[in-house]
């Protein structure tokens, strides 16, 4: 079974035309991969569709802006994948 990270990495590679082999679980979507907020909307759209969830981007952004969270918590891909797993689990609960 394909891992959440692999699916997310494939989405990012295809959406942003980034070589798949440069995307690792440690990659920061913004700082390492250079994905800006507008491109991230396309990624969020693809993730929402692929996993049947709704990434809470507004809440995450607000938390970062308020200093309650760091971008690493949401945009390092291993962490993003974990968040997606949580959202999928919550949806199925």
């Amino acid at each position: 079974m394909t891992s959440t990270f692999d699916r997310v990495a494939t989405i990012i590679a295809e959406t942003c035309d980034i070589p798949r082999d440069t995307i690792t679980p440690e990659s920061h979507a913004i700082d390492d991969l250079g994905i800006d907020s507008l491109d991230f909307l396309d990624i969020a759209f693809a993730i929402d569709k692929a996993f049947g969830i709704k990434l809470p981007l507004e809440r995450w952004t607000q938390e970062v802006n308020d200093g309650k969270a760091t971008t690493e918590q949401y945009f390092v891909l291993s962490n993003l994948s974990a968040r997606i797993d949580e959202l999928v689990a919550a949806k199925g609960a």
Partner: protein
Amino acid sequence: MNLEYFHLIDRIARLSLDDRTITVEANVPEQSTIFEGHFPGYPLMPGVLLIEAMAQTSGWLLIALMKFQRMPFLAAVKEAKMRTFVTPGEKLTIDASIIHEGSGFTMTKANIMSGGKLACNATLTFRHVPFPNPELRGYMDVMAKRIGFPEQAMTDG
């Protein structure tokens, strides 16, 4: 339409919150300073204004769905196709529907029909935020009344 003021929609003909669709009417004016430059002796509705018309149509749908609490701003245009020339005096019908509602953003698809034929279409992305100030909210209230935005959808907000 009043091109100089970016009023690109004349009337909301149909708005369905259940179907998440909207249809509006927009009549291209016979005269406009825009046509003096685009193009001399061969007036055509600029493609960017047709895209804006699709964006405004989508925007009113989003405002209705968000109960007049948030303002959508155009963020991306994809697959925009200008299929035919649109000329002064044409009566356009523009429809829009939701492709995806994300967190803080929405994607729509929109079509412009003229004379029963598809003239333009595009896929649009909007970011939306709470109305940034009372002035803009007030302006949108005035515009809503002008184009026949359903009272029910306004009072729900």
